[in-house]
């Protein structure tokens, strides 16, 4: 069965810390995505990747970076965490034009 695994369900970090969110998929999908989900705002795309070492900015990339060194793994990095980055983060993967498969999400709190 399709599986997208996010490394943490809940994470608490402090302002100014460098934060890594990891996502792994086992479906050999070429596309991977990081979203941020906030009440009333739906899903907002942070970054996505359509191939190893390739990345594209989404709608809200400021304050974030990503890394995709292997096809199955897509990491989201908060370079210097701030309180306004407290949110639910969702990772997804897909083949081209096929439905996205989501992980369970990481609820990140920045104190």
């Amino acid at each position, binding site marked *: 069965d399709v599986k997208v695994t996010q490394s943490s369900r809940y994470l608490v970090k402090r302002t100014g810390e460098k934060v890594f969110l990891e996502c792994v998929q086992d479906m050999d999908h070429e*596309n991977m*995505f990081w*979203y941020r989900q906030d009440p*009333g*705002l*739906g*899903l907002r*795309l942070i970054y*996505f990747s*359509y191939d190893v070492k390739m990345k*594209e900015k*989404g709608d809200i990339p400021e304050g974030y970076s990503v890394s995709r060194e292997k096809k199955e793994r897509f990491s989201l990095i908060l370079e210097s965490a701030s309180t306004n980055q407290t949110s639910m983060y*969702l990772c*997804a993967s*897909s083949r*081209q*034009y096929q*439905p*996205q*498969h*989501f*992980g*369970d*999400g990481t609820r990140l709190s920045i104190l």
Partner: protein
Amino acid sequence: AQTVTQSQPEMSVQEAETVTLSCTYDTSESDYYLFWYKQPPSRQMILVIRQEAYKQQNATENRFSVNFQKAAKSFSLKISDSQLGDAAMYFCASTGPNTGNQFYFGTGTSLTVIP
């Protein structure tokens, strides 16, 4: 780019009744794909149903069906015989050959099922 609009932030339905969630989209493409996703409280987002724009027939998956009106750019989700387990956030989404692999999501509709 495409835009997806869900104008109903919240909806409610009596158990066993039928409810329709609205979604409109805006695209200049002739070929695209539409999806409805369900996100139960504190649980994973899962695909409910998909529709290819070139197909005239409305997609159906058990109690879930869509009303796809291509000219009106409308893609509503009908849930029949609603069950308590249908309570969730529902997101409408679109993608297509010229979106650069991106998906575009609406802001979601929170569905409450009343016993």
